[in-house]
């Protein structure tokens, strides 16, 4: 036990001896947290649109007005020529073209139906889908509205209607920040933890100090424990710090039990830190270790379900994702903080992390060789 304490002490000294380290570990992530939470939204507030309306009839103008009146749309420019509107889109100035054909109202009156075209810049598929949904709803609304206005009296009352009430639970204002604060906090803690541990042993190898440790009577398990504990303390502290900032600054809800969060976090951090140490034991230079850590980090982050939905991934990828510790922990954070989930609700994720932690720590201890 005393041996472990000395190694822990040595690691702390080593980390904090470098004056630049403290701000990098604590200040930079918190600043990022504050800034980045605002970034992650698909919320479409300013759909820039171009209107092609050679018809200029009452109907077409009414439709355009309907779009102009919506807070989601900004009509950037009017034109009679479709080519001109496409050129605008080509230059990235508009996201949506409402293309109304000439003779629109005439066709509508004669054939009882006419087509209005939405042309959407679909490079970003998610935004394009949303723009399409919003625009279609506005158009259908307009249809119904004109129908009601035209046949005031007998026929309208026979129109069948479904009144749909939409509600958003746990977050009625769709404030994406309350969702992003826990998520981004987990990412930051993960990045710091993985980098600190991933560079650690390999650094001693590169500088040569590992030999000095190898000739001491320290056993493998003590060595790995001594390396894990300092980073574990730093990461837990960082998480607590970030949560307080989130509470104070963004007023994120904490519906569930905080102890549940920290219990899961402590297991999760063992997974991440032991993973880092494992990378550290199998690489020869810090450059290699950094590259491998980066590779896994990007894969973990993009497949964590934070930015894109896991359910939309193909089945084999969802199965593969069961190996992604970040996925479990982000779910736990989200469920406990925002929905007040209890231990029973999160237990399947929790036990998965426990098994994972056990496996990875054992692997790291086994893989560390006391030879050069």
């Amino acid at each position: 036990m005393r041996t472990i304490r000395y190694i822990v002490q040595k690691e702390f000294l080593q980390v904090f001896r470098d004056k630049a380290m403290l701000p990098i570990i604590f200040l930079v992530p918190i600043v990022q947290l504050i800034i980045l939470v605002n970034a992650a939204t698909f919320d479409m507030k300013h759909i820039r649109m171009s209107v092609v309306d050679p018809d200029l009839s009452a109907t077409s103008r009414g439709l355009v007005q309907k779009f102009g009146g919506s807070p989601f749309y900004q009509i950037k420019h009017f034109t009679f020529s479709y080519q001109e509107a496409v050129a605008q889109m080509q230059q990235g100035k508009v996201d949506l073209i409402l293309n109304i054909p000439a003779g629109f109202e005439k066709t509508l009156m004669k054939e009882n139906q006419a087509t209005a075209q939405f042309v959407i810049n679909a490079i970003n598929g998610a935004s394009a889908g949303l723009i399409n949904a919003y625009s279609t709803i506005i158009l259908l609304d307009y249809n119904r509205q004109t129908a009601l206005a035209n046949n005031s009296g007998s026929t309208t009352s026979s129109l069948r209607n479904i009144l749909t009430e939409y509600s958003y639970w746990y977050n009625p204002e769709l404030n994406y920040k309350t969702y992003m604060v826990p998520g981004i906090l987990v990412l930051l803690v993960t990045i710091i933890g993985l980098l600190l541990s991933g560079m650690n042993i390999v650094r001693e190898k590169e500088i040569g100090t590992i030999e000095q440790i190898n000739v001491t009577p320290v056993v493998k398990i003590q060595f790995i424990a001594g390396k894990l504990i300092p980073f574990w303390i730093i990461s837990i502290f960082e998480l607590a710090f970030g949560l307080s900032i989130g509470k104070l600054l963004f007023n994120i809800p904490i519906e569930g039990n905080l102890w549940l969060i920290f219990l899961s976090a402590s297991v999760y951090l063992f997974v991440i830190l032991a993973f880092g140490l494992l990378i550290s034991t199998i690489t020869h230079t810090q450059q290699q270790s950094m590259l491998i850590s980066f590779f896994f980090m990007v894969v973990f982050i993009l497949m964590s379900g934070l930015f894109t939905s896991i359910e939309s991934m193909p089945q084999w990828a969802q199965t593969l994702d069961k190996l992604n510790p970040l996925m479990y922990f982000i779910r736990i954070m989200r469920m406990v903080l925002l929905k007040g989930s209890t231990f029973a609700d999160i237990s399947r994720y929790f036990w998965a992390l426990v098994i994972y932690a056990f496996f990875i720590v054992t692997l790291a201890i086994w893989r560390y060789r006391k030879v050069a």
Partner: protein
Amino acid sequence: MKRFGAFVVKEFYHIFRDYRTLLILFGMPAVQLMLFGYVITNEIKDARIAIYDPSKDVVTRTISDKILSSGYFILERNLNNVAEIEDAFRYGEVGLAIIFEPEFAKKMEKTGTAHLQVIGDASDPNTANILVNYVSGIISNYLISINSEKIPHQIIPETRMMYNGELKGVYMFVPGLMAMLLMLISALMTSLAITREKELGTMELLLVSPLQPVQIIIGKVFPYVFLAFIDAIIILILANTVFHVPVLGSVSLLLGESFLYICMALSLGILISTITSSQQIAMMVSLVALMLPTILLSGFIFPVENMPWILQAFCYVMPPKYFITIIKSIMLQGNGLANVWHETLILLGFTLFFLILSIKKFNIRLA
């Protein structure tokens, strides 16, 4: 010049000797592109939902069928009472609940109006918003279809998706992945390569050699220009052959812009290495400070235009944002230099800025 040549050759030896790093360096972009190309879509489909339908009549069944056959939703659970919604949400198995009122069809027939409730699990607000919009669209369409004889004039919406008809996610990931990987390889690898010499003490040897400091720096970064460029080409070829991402614009312009971006990232790497003393610090600075902003503030996943204005201001100082704009513009929209000269100039400006700053900071003497 001959000395310089020898130095560059030495640097190449350094890199090629370490075959593991090389393997990761070339394997990583390939594996990640394949993985993300197949896996990640921004589109939401197969979302799990719960339905509570106490009336079980023709209308509610038709609506449920329409919702479930849209491809966006999978029925996870039929609820027996309203109280079960809370459990389902808390357990995290469904993202949306649809609740019909009792005697739905009867009420619609009699009073003309029936009530439907759609509840989204907004602990993930982006997904909830998209799902609710999908449902809303489906209901609107259904209403139109049952009322079609009674609404005399109808405007039919027709949608055309430009540049990416099938809404493939890989169209976004190719530019994003290029921006991220090139940044990493160039900025990080160079900053590590230079600080490594400092840390191991071999920098002193180089500095007392007859080589000029500028030559040392150029010699050290030169191999990485080469490696990063090969990576860019690997990504482009894979994207084009495997995922059929088109290159509508000029290929040479695309490569030229990639080269410019690589130079920008390299000068950032040199700057980082001049202000840090150990590899660990250099890496922490580059990864911690660059990684998430490159993903989030560059328009890689989340569109810049939707962000609050103060954040957009931050985006304007992120070089990857300009590179991603350029790549999308050239590859997917087929634009030429005339449309991207603005962004190109800004990237050039960044490069010069980083270079001048590093020359000012560069110390010939070590500590």
